[in-house]
């Protein structure tokens, strides 16, 4: 076992997960590839969504991959930062909206 949980070199080994349960891995990677094709959303828009999600779930592999991917797709630094702010807003909002529960509880237990 390595001394750290995350190693940048592991990103390139993602495909190796097919060594165990290959049919499941094959299905996943086929689906993954199709998801990121041009469709109702462009490849660049999907890349920016992926970058935002990567920050929301705090996946270092995904941040690494989708920062480079965004640059390759021609996204500007401003667009990539706005995508991260969207993730931050949703995460922050998700905490704050629970404050309504706290406020209701305050009302419930107060005279």
């Amino acid at each position: 076992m390595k001394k750290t949980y995350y190693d940048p070199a592991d990103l390139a080994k993602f495909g190796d997960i097919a060594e165990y349960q290959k049919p499941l891995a094959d299905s996943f990677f086929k689906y993954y590839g199709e998801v990121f094709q041009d469709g109702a959303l462009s490849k660049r828009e999907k890349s920016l969504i992926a970058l935002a999600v990567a920050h929301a779930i705090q996946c270092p592999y995904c941040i690494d991959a989708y920062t480079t991917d965004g640059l390759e797709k021609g996204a500007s630094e401003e667009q990539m930062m706005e995508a991260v702010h969207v993730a931050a807003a949703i995460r922050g909002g998700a905490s704050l909206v629970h404050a309504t529960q706290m406020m209701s509880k305050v009302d419930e237990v107060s005279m």
Partner: protein
Amino acid sequence: MTSLKKQGNQLASSAFQLEVLKTLPSGTPSFATTLSNHEISSISPLETKILQLNLGYMCNQTCKHCHVDAGPDRKEIMTREVMNDVLSVLREHSFQTLDLTGGAPEMNPDFRWFVEQASQLVPHIIVRCNLTIINANPKYYDLPEFFKQHNINVVSSLPFYQKKRTDRQRGNGVFDRSIDALQRLNGVGYGTNDSNLQLDLVYNPMGAFLPGDQATLEQDFKKELQETFDISFNNLLVITNLPISRFLEFLLASGNYDTYMTKLVQAFNPAAAAGVMCRDTLSVGWDGALYDCDFNQMLELPVATTSSRNIRDFDAEALLNRRIVTANHCYGCTAGAGSSCGGQTA
């Protein structure tokens, strides 16, 4: 910033660069092996349609990614004698295009004389203009008019439509001066709807990643440059950074060499290999030496024919029968949608 040569950097040596390029990440096949794995025995030449001349390595800029290692301190320059050898070949053979590059080709003292002579002999002349030469010195201010007089196709690097990314790659202030130069070119009719004066821009990534889709990036550039600066142009040519010279130095110094080479190799595209520019382009060095491409010129890999290694000994038949010289840097032209001096190829 000075050239690698001026710094005495060992990467100024083409032999050292080739040694570095021999070392690929573990398990990565050489370019020759990859061609073989795709049952491509070799990349064979076609009739030469484009003659690309390097008029010298002197340049007013010192860009971080420059594959020529060009800059103000470089003194290699094409003489009028070599230019006369080229003109002799242009009189005796027909080419579609004469492609003039550098350094900044306009800094060659015989540049205008040569263009005047050559424009009578070849139907299409490209000048790879770095834009900032146009406003670098009063003696260059009339270049847009000169280009127009000789119906030159101006091809100019602009790595991004924003200042920060452009200046990081090409130097502080380059973006603003490039915008000024583009407006001057538009002012004489270049790149506008109501003229045939062709103005193309070149995009290359600002780091260790591949370029995106050419058509999509062209749309972005056209929209942003029009809306922000009222600038128009014809085509955007998307080029991959080849791992040589200053870009190789960047890859090694930043620890990106292995990742970038792996990316290029994994993106190998047989269709791009079929469309590489070395098949119908011949590169002529400042001293008249012949190469399969500008990159091979910088790596000092001459054409593989003993009878026609200099423009003064130009032999179309011998060149048609030559074997194109390849090495691992060629992965740069075969990755993804392919790359050439004319943009994406596949």
